[in-house]
Structures are given as structure tokens and as C-alpha cells.
């Protein structure tokens, strides 16, 4: 292990900064990828909580038929904001910007990303985007009410602040592109000696695939958003049938980005799963290459399925069946991953710590989300289920049950490394159990509601839906309690928790081979890689006591 001799710094990255400032400025002007990761954690985490509050308000409105706490127009703004915040401010940047920033360089055995200043700029661009969203709420005209998909023609006709809000989405896209190109360059140029592509941890592979999607897909939404803004200001007519434009073309352009974006959301989560499972099963991941390649396959095929959002929009039959077929094909690489994960657990020496419990939850919830995706991916059933609560349930299962769950799993897994302290395991376990119950209570009824015909984006409903809607609302309260438990536990740990050791879980990827929290330059030694990423024979050499 002791390769090379390097001046040892006893200080952590909290105590040493990349600039000459101290206090808040040392954070706001930092180029340290770890601090930038934490800046993202606090801001993105904050927006997640705002999004949750909006979700709870909607659920409260839906507790009984008729107007309960908000009127129809307010409800329109609520679901739009909830969607915009959850998608553009939480789930798309979430895992790459927080955990990617913090751990990509460490797992590669290097000291920072390829462009540290650009990295800080990306955070500021994110903040500008977020602030624009907030400004659009208070300006005269009122908060945007189009739904997060901004469909033409309504988004051109409505008098609410659409232009500003979608410009914010444009700006956020910029941040996403910059992070993406930074990560790609880092992976190509900064791997530690000995770290070939196939010695990279799978989290890196998934970030790499994600970064490519960010770079390739985001510009398309950029131009589409610009066109909507131009349409609103000058009435050019690109999407306006009265002037010869085609509103369906908008849907194509929108989903050409937004469907790949779905994979921007899920791929990093799959990467985190592939990190957590080996650590707690104490054995190497099953099918390393299959998982790595399936990330790339998902990234690629994910491009070619966008029109499955448009089965009922009147596109041609040939197009519909081709897109339906391709949709089924994306299920294959996703299935490869699920089987490999389960196989990793087989005959492992399983250590059921909180991160693993969350991953198990994930496998279950994400499988439901994925399989119901096939239900709406089939032409015949989609006609019945399109724009109903079935779809709402489906995408919450994949986005929240998939990526959201892993967001929390990742926090539990890497918290001791990021903050150098340990949380209360018992409460973490309780939260995991509660979460699973709350989640299914909140969203499973929506599948049935959708099947019965409850349309999405309505603040009111027929009396026969009442019971299921009530169950769902009670589920949302349970979810709120769960989230409060999680957040309190982590904040408490951050302030007062026990000191965590360098390797509390017995992981073998590089982040567990440095102190918790890491020093400014990540390692107090010269890193050279001579193992496969999940080779647990190293565990003896690493200071891990399994107490």
C-alpha cells in the first residue's frame, strides 16, 4: 500500500481550503470538488424538501372530492412547480452533482475533476436557474401552470410566467452540460496509474454514461425551450398550426431530450446500487462487464424511445409500433442489471446495514416501476392508461422509488465518509421500514385509480375514487414523518454523531482507503491501482475491523 512517499497532511478538507479565505467565502469560492459536492447537497436537498411540501399540499387537496384547500388554478401551479422542482432541481442534478462531484475523483484516485473552476461555475449556474424559478413565482402573471412538460399550444397561450420559468430550465440545462463534459474529461484524463477503464468502480461507469447523455441530449431541450420563448415573444409560428407550424413537433423535440433525461436520472442510481451491494455482500459484483456495458446500452437505446410518450398524439401506426418495440428493448439492459444485483447477493455474506436495506427497497420499487413501464409501453394498454394516475404511479415508482430511494441510500452509505461521523443505525433502520410502507401506501393506490380512470392533473374527482385517494394521502403523511426522521437523524449525526472510522462498512473502492473525511487532496499517499474494483481480498490489508 505504501507507494511513494508524500508529505502527510493531518487536516481534513474541512480544515484546509483551496483559496485564501476562511468561513463562508472559503466555501463560495472553493474549487475543491468535495466542497462543491456539499454545496450541491445543501441546495438540492433544500429544493427536494420544497418539492415534498408541494406534493403534500396536493395530497391534502386530494383527500376529499371537490375543493378542499386550494382552487383549480392553484392546483395547476402546484403540480407544475412540484414537477419542475423535482425534475430540474432535484432528480436530474441530484446524484451526479452531489455524489458524483464528491466521489468521482476519489474513486478514480485523483485529486480533483479536470476543470475545477468550471465545476464551481456549474454550481453558480444551477443557483441562477433556481433563483429564476423562484422569481417566476412572485412576478405578476402568476406561477407557471402548464405542467412540467410545457406542452404547446397551452404554454404559448397562458398568461402566466412561462417564459421566465422555462428559461430557468434552459439555464439549469447549461449547468448539467458543464458538469457532464467535466466528468467525461476527468474519466478520460485523470484516472490513477493502473486504473484501466475496466478497473473503474461501476458508479464511475454510470456517471460516465450519464455524462454523455447530458452532453448529447440537453442541447435539444435548450433549443426547444428557446423556441417556445421566441414563440411567446414574437409569435414566429414554428409550433402554431394557424401559421403552418406543427404542435406535435414540439412534443417530439421535448421528448428527444426528456426521455434520455429519464436515464440521466436512473443510471447514476444504478451505479450507486452496484457500489453498495458488493460492500454489504462482501463479494465482488456479479457480471461487472455486463453491468458496465448495459449502462452504455441503456444510454444508447434510451435515445430511440422518446415517442412512447406520444402514443395517443396521432403519430403514425408504424412509428408507434417501432417505438413500442424499442421501448421493450430498453427493458433488456435494465433487466440484466437487476439479475446481476440479485445474483451478487446470492451466497454473499450479507451484512444488513441501512444502506443495503434501502437498496433492497430500491430493487423492489424499481422493479414495479419498470414492469409497469412495459404496461404503458404497450400500444393497446397505453390508450387506456395514458394521462391517468397509472402514469403518475409509474413515474413516481421509477423516479422516487428508484432514484429517490437511492439518493437516500447513497447518503446513508457515504455519510460517514463525507462528514466523518456516524448516524444512529437503529433510527436509520426504522426509517427504512417506514419508508417502504409509506411509499407503497402513497403510490400503489394510484395504479388502481389510474386503471379505474382517474385522470392526472385534476384537483377534483368522482366520489367513487375517495377511499383510494384517502389511503394515498395518509401514505403521504407517513412519508413526511419518514423524511423528518431521516433528516433529523442525519443532521444530528453531522453535529453530534460518533466519529466514523476510515472504513466503517468494509468497502474496498478507493474512497474507503483514505481518511473520513478525506484530506484536501483526497489521499495522503500516491495512489496506484493494482486490484479489480471489488476485490475483497484487499480487505485484510485495509484497516477494517468488522466488530
Amino acid at each position, binding site marked *: 500500500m505504501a507507494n*511513494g512517499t*508524500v*508529505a*502527510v*497532511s493531518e*487536516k481534513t478538507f474541512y480544515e*484546509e*481550503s*483551496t483559496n*485564501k479565505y476562511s468561513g463562508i467565502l472559503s466555501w463560495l469560492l472553493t*474549487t475543491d470538488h468535495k466542497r462543491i459536492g456539499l454545496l450541491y447537497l445543501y441546495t438540492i436537498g433544500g429544493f427536494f424538501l420544497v418539492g415534498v411540501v408541494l406534493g403534500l399540499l396536493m395530497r391534502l387537496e386530494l383527500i376529499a372530492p371537490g375543493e378542499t384547500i386550494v382552487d383549480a388554478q392553484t392546483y395547476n401551479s402546484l403540480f407544475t412547480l412540484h414537477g419542475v422542482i423535482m425534475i430540474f432541481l432535484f432528480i436530474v442534478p441530484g446524484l451526479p452533482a452531489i455524489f458524483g462531484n464528491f466521489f468521482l475523483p476519489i474513486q478514480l484516485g*485523483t*485529486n*480533483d475533476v*479536470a*476543470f*475545477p473552476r*468550471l465545476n464551481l461555475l456549474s454550481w453558480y449556474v444551477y443557483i441562477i436557474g433556481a433563483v429564476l424559478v423562484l422569481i417566476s413565482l412572485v412576478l405578476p402573471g402568476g406561477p407557471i401552470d402548464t405542467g412540467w412538460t410545457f406542452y404547446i399550444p397551452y404554454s404559448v397561450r397562458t398568461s402566466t410566467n412561462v417564459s421566465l420559468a422555462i428559461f430557468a430550465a434552459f439555464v439549469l440545462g447549461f449547468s448539467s*452540460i458543464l458538469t*457532464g*463534459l*467535466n466528468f*467525461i*474529461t476527468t474519466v*478520460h*484524463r*485523470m*484516472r*490513477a*496509474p493502473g486504473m484501466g477503464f475496466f478497473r473503474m468502480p461501476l458508479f464511475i461507469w454510470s456517471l460516465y454514461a450519464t455524462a454523455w447523455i447530458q*452532453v*448529447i*441530449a*440537453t*442541447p*435539444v431541450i*435548450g*433549443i*426547444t425551450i*428557446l*423556441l417556445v420563448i*421566441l414563440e411567446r415573444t*414574437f*409569435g*414566429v*409560428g*414554428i409550433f402554431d398550426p394557424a*401559421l*403552418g*407550424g*406543427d404542435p406535435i*413537433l414540439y412534443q417530439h*423535440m421535448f421528448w*428527444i431530450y426528456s426521455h434520455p433525461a429519464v436515464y440521466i436520472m436512473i443510471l447514476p442510481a444504478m451505479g450507486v446500487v452496484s457500489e453498495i451491494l458488493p460492500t454489504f455482500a462482501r463479494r465482488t459484483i456479479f457480471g461487472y462487464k455486463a453491468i458496465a456495458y448495459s449502462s452504455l446500452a441503456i444510454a444508447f437505446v434510451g435515445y430511440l424511445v422518446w415517442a412512447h410518450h406520444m402514443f395517443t398524439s396521432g403519430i403514425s401506426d408504424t412509428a408507434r409500433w417501432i417505438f413500442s418495440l424499442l421501448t421493450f428493448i430498453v427493458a433488456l439492459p435494465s433487466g440484466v442489471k437487476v439479475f446481476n444485483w440479485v445474483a451478487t447477493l446470492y451466497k454473499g455474506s450479507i451484512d444488513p446495514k441501512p444502506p443495503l436495506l434501502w437498496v433492497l427497497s430500491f430493487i423492489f420499487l424499481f422493479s414495479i416501476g419498470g414492469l409497469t413501464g412495459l404496461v404503458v409501453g404497450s400500444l393497446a394498454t397505453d390508450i387506456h392508461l395514458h394521462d391517468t394516475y397509472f402514469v403518475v404511479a409509474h413515474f413516481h415508482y421509477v423516479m422516487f422509488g428508484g432514484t429517490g430511494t437511492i439518493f437516500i441510500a447513497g447518503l446513508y452509505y457515504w455519510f460517514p465518509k463525507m462528514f466523518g461521523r456516524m448516524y444512529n443505525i437503529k433510527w436509520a433502520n426504522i426509517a427504512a421500514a417506514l419508508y417502504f410502507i409509506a411509499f407503497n401506501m402513497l403510490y400503489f393506490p394510484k395504479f388502481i385509480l389510474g386503471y379505474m380512470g382517474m385522470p392526472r392533473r385534476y384537483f377534483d374527482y368522482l366520489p367513487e375514487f375517495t377511499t383510494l385517494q384517502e389511503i394515498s394521502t395518509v401514505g403521504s403523511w407517513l412519508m413526511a414523518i419518514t423524511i423528518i426522521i431521516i433528516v433529523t437523524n442525519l443532521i444530528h449525526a453531522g453535529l453530534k454523531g460518533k466519529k466514523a472510522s476510515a472504513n466503517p462498512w468494509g468497502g474496498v473502492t478507493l474512497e474507503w482507503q483514505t481518511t473520513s473525511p478525506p484530506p*484536501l*487532496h*483526497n*489521499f*495522503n499517499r*500516491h495512489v496506484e491501482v493494482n486490484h479489480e474494483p471489488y476485490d475483497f481480498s484487499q480487505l485484510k490489508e485495509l484497516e477494517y475491523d468488522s466488530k
Partner: protein
Amino acid sequence: MTQNEHTVSSEHSHAHVHRDDIGAKMGMWLFLFTELLLFGGMFLMYAVYRFQYQMDFKIAAMELSVSMGTLNTIILLTSSLTVALAITAIQKGNKFLAVLNLNITIIFALMFMVNKYYEWSAKFEHGLYPGSDEMLSLPNGQIMFYGLYYIMTGLHGLHVIIGVIILAIMLVLVIKDKITSDNYVKLENGGLYWHLVDLIWIFLFPLFYLIH
């Protein structure tokens, strides 16, 4: 890979000494890729509407001034040459030639914008701008042609302006000896950006001016 072997030392906690020219260029290429896709979205829409309104596009395209477009194409192509010359000059350590060529590039870029201004204002005088009565009286396909024309050349014009700003910054850096014969990756990246602006114009020109 020497860059990666840069060792960690606690004294130099600030200042990322690390420099990686290949990495910097790789980042730039990725960025250019996103620019291509931004315009790619527009080219896609152009293709769809051209297919839908073939006759109208033909008629509307005749209104554009081929000579003006050709002039601008020559200007922009030459400016790509001068920026390349500036890079070669700096590689050979000839600061004077580099500064000269960068200045010429900027002047070409401004000439391009001036031409564009005259071209657009001529259209405006004829009442051909989005939302005008004149425009709305045209058949749908022609409205679409002009809509795309304004959006695409406008977006391109915006890139020319950004390009001028980048080139001006490069000029200052060369003058201040921040870009030298052994550290010129910034200028190369600036040049790449300028070539992109040029490249996109090379596609816009035939699509709008030449295909009748």
C-alpha cells in the same frame, strides 16, 4: 499521463498546478458537440418543414440575396483562415503576426455582422418580420421559411457575437503574454469555437440561399 503523476503536497494547497492541454481540448470538443446538437435541433425542424412546404420554401428562398450571402460566406471562411494563421504564428513564437491575424479575424467578424444588419433591415423595410401584416398575408410555408431564417441566422449571429468576445479576450491574453509559444491551448480552443461558427454558416448558407 505525466499530469496525473503530479504529487500531492500540503504546502501547495491552493493553486492547481496541474495542466492538461489534451484534457482542455477534449472539454472544448465536447462543448462544440453540444453546440452542434443545439443547431441540430433546428436543422431537424428545417428538414421537417422543408419536406412539408417544398414549393413555398422555394419561392421564399428567391427573396434572399445570394450575393450578400456569398459575400458573408467568403468573409467568414477567410476569417477561419486568419484565426488558424494566428495559432500557427503563436506556435512559432511570432507574437506580432498572431496579434495582427487576430485583429483581422475580429474585423472580418464585425464585417459579417454589419452585412447581416443590412440584410435584415432590408427585409424589415419590406415588412418581412415575424408577426407583421405583410408576413401574415403570405402562405404558411413562406411564413415558416422566414421564421426559420430569422431564428437560425439570428442564433448564428449571436454565436458570431460571442465569438468576437472570445477572440477579443484571446487578443488581450496574447498581448499580455499569457498565451505564448509553449502555452497556447486557450487560443486553440478559441479558434475551435470560431471554426464552429464558420462551419454552421457553411450549412446555413446553402440551406437558405442556394437551394431553390
